C-alpha cells in the first residue's frame, strides 16, 4: 500500500538528510499519506492505544529501575521506598503496575477484534502470527515484572510457573535449574528476571515494528472485510486516523487514570504486600488476572504434563487460526453463525478467567473441564466446520458502498445473548453455593471511613489517636519498620509539626554504630530514624510469641483482605471500594469472643476470633475498654480504639493517599476536557468522510 513516497521536505537541512537517509519520506508515507479504510470503527484505535501503553511502560519502567534494587533481601523494601520516598514514586509505580493490566485489557480487545473481523485471513497471516508472538512476549514480560516486588505472590507465582517447565520429560529439570540459577527460586532468579524484564520490552518494540511493517504491506482490514479498491474507499492516515486514534487513546486514559488514582490495588493481590517467605505458602496462589483463563485450562487437566501442554497449546493454536478458519468471508458481520459462536467464545474466555481465580474443587473443576473443551472446540471444530456449512450474507462491492448503504440492520444475536445470560446465571448460583460452603470465617462488616471514596482524606485527630494506641498497645509486639518519625510531620499525615515529630522521635532509643571503638551504642531517635522493631529478628519474635511471629504493621491494611465474591467485585469497580483491609483489621480487633461456638475447637495458646481465617488466632485480645486515655475526650472504648488504630495503619500503609486522590481529581478534570476537545476535532476532520 505504502508505495515510494514523493515527499520532499521544504527545509534545506532536512532535504540534505533526506537525500542520504530517506527517513522523512518513510514517516510521511507510513503515517501521513498512508491510505486507511474509511469505514474503520473505534475497535481499530486499539493499535494506537497499545503503542501508547508500550511507550508508557518503557518510560515508567526505566525510571523505576533507577530506584529499584534487584536483591532478594532488599527488593521488597526498595519498592516500598519508591512508593514512600521517591518524588511521585507512588505515581510511577501505580502507572507501571496498572499499566501492565491496561496493556493486557487493550491487547485482549485488539485480539478479539481481529478474531471477529477475520483480520488473520489472507493476506494478513504473518501480521497475525507476529501479533501472537508479541502477546507471548508480553506474557513473559508481565510474569517476570510481577516477580520483581518480591512479595509472597511474586515468589510463589514464580515457583508455580517455573515448575511448569519441569513437566517436560528429560529436559524439564535442566530448564528449571536454568531459570532459577540455583536449587530453588531465590536471589539469582530475581536477578535474571530483572535483566530479562528490562530486555523483553525492547524485543517487543522490535516485533511491533515488524507488526506495523506487515500491516502497512498488507493494508488494514476493516469492518466489512472487503479490500479497498479505489481512492474513494480510503482516507489519508493524517489527519483522519491520527485524530481518531488520539481520541481513542484519550478515552482509554480515562480508564487508566481511574485505576491509577482511585483503585491502584484492585487488580493486584493483597498477599503481595507480604514480603516473600520461602517457608510459607499462601493458602491460595492466583496469577495476575490476565493469565487466569490459561491457569484454569492448566488446572482442569488432571495430568501434569498434559495440563502444561494444553495451557501452552491454548496460545499456540492462535498461530494456526488463519488455516483453521478457511471461510472466504472475512468479517463476522456477514457471517450469521460465526457471529453467534464468537460471542459464545468470548463468554467462555471470561468464565475460564473467573474459574482460574476459584479454588480447584467441586463444581469449579467440572465447569473448568467443560469450558476448556469449549475453548479448543471453537478453534478445532466450530471454525473449520462453519467454513464448510455456513452461508454468509453477501458482502458489499466496496467500502464506499458499505459506508453509503449503512448496512446497519442490526439483528440482536439472540442465541448467544441467551447463552451468555445463562452462563452468568449459573456463575451467580455457583458462587452463592460456594459462599454457603465457606461459611467459616465471617465477612467483616463495612465501615464508614473518612479516607474512602474519590475525595477521601484522613481524619487528623483519628490518626493522632491511632498513633497513641499503636505506641501504647501494639508496639510491644508489632513493628512499624517502613515508617520514619519524619513521616509524622509530612503533608497528608497526622499533622504534627517538625518539632513535635523530633520530640516524639527522641523518646525512642535507637541502636547505632559501630563507633570508633567498634561498639554498637544507643542514642535518642532522630526524625530520619524508623520506628524501632520490638524484636531483633523474626526468630526472636516467633520464639517470644508461641511460634507465631507478630507481623509488621506498616502495610497490614494493604496486606490483608477478604474475598468479595461475585458480583461484588464488579460493583467495587464503580463504587471504588478499596477498604477490605481496614474493614478486616478493625473487625479482627473487635472479633474476640469469650464463648467459643459449638463445633469449633481452639488449640491451647490460641484464642477464638470471629473474623480470623480458621478462627484460632495466637494474638490474645489486644484491646479492652479504658486501656488508653485520649486527650481530646474521645470515648475510651474498644470500638473507638480499633477504628482509630486502623485509620492510622491505613496511613502507614499509604502515606501519600491524599496526594493520590487530589492529583487524580485534577487529572480527571483535565482528561475530560481533553477528551471533549478531541471528540469535536475528530468530528470536524471526519465531517466530509462519513
Amino acid at each position, binding site marked *: 500500500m505504502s508505495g515510494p513516497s514523493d515527499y520532499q521536505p521544504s527545509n534545506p537541512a532536512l532535504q540534505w538528510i533526506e537525500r542520504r537517509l530517506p527517513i522523512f519520506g518513510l514517516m510521511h508515507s507510513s503515517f501521513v499519506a498512508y491510505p486507511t479504510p474509511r469505514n474503520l470503527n473505534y475497535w481499530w484505535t486499539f493499535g494506537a492505544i497499545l503503542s501508547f501503553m508500550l511507550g508508557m511502560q518503557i518510560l515508567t519502567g526505566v525510571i523505576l529501575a533507577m530506584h529499584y534494587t534487584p536483591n532478594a533481601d532488599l527488593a521488597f523494601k526498595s519498592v516500598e521506598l519508591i512508593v514512600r520516598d521517591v518524588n511521585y514514586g507512588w505515581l510511577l509505580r501505580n502507572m507501571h503496575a496498572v499499566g501492565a493490566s491496561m496493556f493486557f485489557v487493550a491487547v485482549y480487545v485488539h485480539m478479539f477484534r481481529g478474531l471477529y473481523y477475520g483480520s488473520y485471513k489472507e493476506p494478513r497471516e504473518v501480521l497475525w502470527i507476529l501479533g501472537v508472538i508479541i502477546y507471548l512476549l508480553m506474557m513473559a514480560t508481565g510474569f517476570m515484572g510481577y516477580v520483581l516486588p518480591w512479595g509472597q505472590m511474586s515468589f510463589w507465582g514464580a515457583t508455580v510457573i517455573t515448575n*511448569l517447565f519441569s513437566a517436560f520429560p528429560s529436559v524439564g529439570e535442566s530448564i528449571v535449574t536454568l531459570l532459577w*540459577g540455583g*536449587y*530453588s527460586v531465590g536471589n*539469582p532468579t530475581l536477578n535474571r528476571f530483572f535483566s530479562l524484564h528490562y530486555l523483553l520490552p525492547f524485543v517487543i518494540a522490535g516485533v511491533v515494528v515488524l507488526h506495523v511493517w506487515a500491516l502497512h504491506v498488507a493494508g488494514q482490514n476493516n469492518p466489512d472485510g472487503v479490500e479497498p479498491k479505489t481512492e474513494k474507499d480510503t482516507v489519508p492516515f493524517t489527519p483522519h486516523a491520527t485524530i481518531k486514534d488520539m481520541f481513542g487513546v484519550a478515552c482509554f486514559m480515562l480508564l487508566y487514570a481511574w485505576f491509577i488514582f482511585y483503585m491502584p490495588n484492585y487488580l493486584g493481590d493483597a498477599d503481595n504486600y507480604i514480603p516473600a517467605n520461602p*517457608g*510459607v505458602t499462601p493458602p491460595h496462589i492466583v496469577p495476575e488476572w490476565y493469565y487466569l483463563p490459561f491457569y484454569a485450562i492448566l488446572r482442569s487437566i488432571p495430568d*501434569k504434563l498434559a495440563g502444561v501442554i494444553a495451557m501452552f497449546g491454548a496460545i499456540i493454536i492462535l498461530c494456526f487460526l488463519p488455516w483453521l478458519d478457511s471461510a472466504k468471508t472475512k468479517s463476522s458481520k456477514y457471517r450469521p453463525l460465526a457471529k453467534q459462536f464468537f460471542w459464545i467464545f468470548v463468554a467462555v474466555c471470561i468464565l475460564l478467567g473467573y474459574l482460574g481465580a476459584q479454588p480447584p474443587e467441586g463444581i469449579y473443576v467440572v465447569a473448568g473441564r467443560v469450558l476448556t473443551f469449549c475453548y479448543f472446540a471453537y478453534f478445532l471444530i466450530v471454525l473449520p466446520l462453519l467454513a464448510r456449512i455456513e452461508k454468509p450474507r453477501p458482502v458489499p462491492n466496496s467500502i464506499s458502498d458499505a459506508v453509503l448503504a449503512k448496512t446497519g440492520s442490526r439483528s440482536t444475536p439472540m442465541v448467544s445473548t441467551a447463552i451468555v445470560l445463562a452462563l452468568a446465571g449459573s456463575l451467580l448460583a455457583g458462587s452463592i453455593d460456594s459462599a454457603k460452603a465457606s461459611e467459616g470465617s465471617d465477612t467483616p462488616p463495612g465501615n464508614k471511613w473518612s479516607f474512602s471514596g474519590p475525595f477521601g482524606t484522613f481524619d487528623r485527630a483519628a490518626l493522632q489517636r491511632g498513633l497513641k494506641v499503636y505506641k501504647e498497645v501494639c508496639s510491644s509486639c508489632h513493628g512499624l519498620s517502613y515508617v520514619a518519625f519524619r513521616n509524622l510531620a509530612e503533608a497528608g499525615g497526622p499533622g504534627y509539626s517538625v518539632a513535635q515529630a523530633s520530640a516524639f522521635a527522641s523518646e525512642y532509643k535507637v541502636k547505632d554504630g559501630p563507633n570508633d571503638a567498634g561498639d554498637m551504642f544507643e542514642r535518642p531517635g532522630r526524625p530520619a530514624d524508623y520506628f524501632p522493631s520490638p524484636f531483633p529478628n523474626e526468630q526472636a519474635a516467633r520464639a517470644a510469641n508461641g511460634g507465631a511471629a507478630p507481623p509488621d504493621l506498616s502495610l497490614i491494611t494493604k496486606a490483608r483482605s477478604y474475598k468479595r465474591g461475585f458480583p461484588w467485585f464488579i460493583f467495587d469497580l464503580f463504587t471504588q471500594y478499596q477498604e477490605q483491609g481496614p474493614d478486616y483489621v478493625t473487625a479482627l480487633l473487635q472479633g474476640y469472643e469469650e464463648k467459643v461456638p459449638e463445633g469449633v475447637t481452639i488449640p491451647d495458646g490460641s484464642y477464638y476470633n470471629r473474623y480470623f481465617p480458621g478462627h484460632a488466632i495466637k494474638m490474645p485480645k489486644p484491646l479492652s475498654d479504658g486501656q488508653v486515655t485520649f486527650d481530646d475526650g474521645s470515648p475510651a472504648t474498644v470500638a473507638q480504639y480499633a477504628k482509630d488504630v486502623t485509620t492510622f495503619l491505613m496511613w502507614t500503609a499509604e502515606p501519600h493517599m491524599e496526594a493520590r486522590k487530589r492529583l487524580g481529581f485534577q487529572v480527571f478534570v483535565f482528561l475530560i476536557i481533553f477528551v471533549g476537545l478531541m471528540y469535536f476535532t475528530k468530528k470536524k476532520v471526519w465531517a466530509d468522510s462519513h
Partner: protein
Amino acid sequence: MNPDASTIAAGAPIEVDLSPIAEGQDIKVFWRGKPIYISHRTKKQIDEARAVNVASLPDPQTDEARVKSGHEQWLVVIGICTHLGCIPIAHEGNYDGFFCPCHGSQYDSSGRIRQGPAPLNLPVPPYQFVSDTKIQIG
C-alpha cells in the same frame, strides 16, 4: 546461566541432630533453599504406611524403599509438592501425612501421593545416618 560456584558451595551437605525431635513431631530444615521435612513417625503412622497395597498407588513405592532400614521411624522428604512446587503442611489431610494447600494434593505418612493432581511422591533427598541421632543431608 547454570548456578554459580558460590551457590553450589552453599549447597554443601548439612548435618541435622535428631535427638530433640519427639515421637510424632517433625521439623523443617532448609537445604539448597528447599524445605526438608524430618518426621519422627509414630508406630501408627509406620503401620499405616506399610499396610497399603503398593500396586494401588499412583506412584508405586514401598515404605521400606523410602526410609533407611533400622531407622524406620525417621521419614526424610523434600517438602515441595510435586505438582507445582508449593510447600505441603505436615500432619494434615486424610492420610496422616502431608496436605498441599495450593491444589489439594494429599500425601501419606510415607510422603507418597495418595490423592490430588500431583503426579509423584515427595522426593527423598540423598542422606545417611552419621550416628543414631544424627543425619547428614546431601
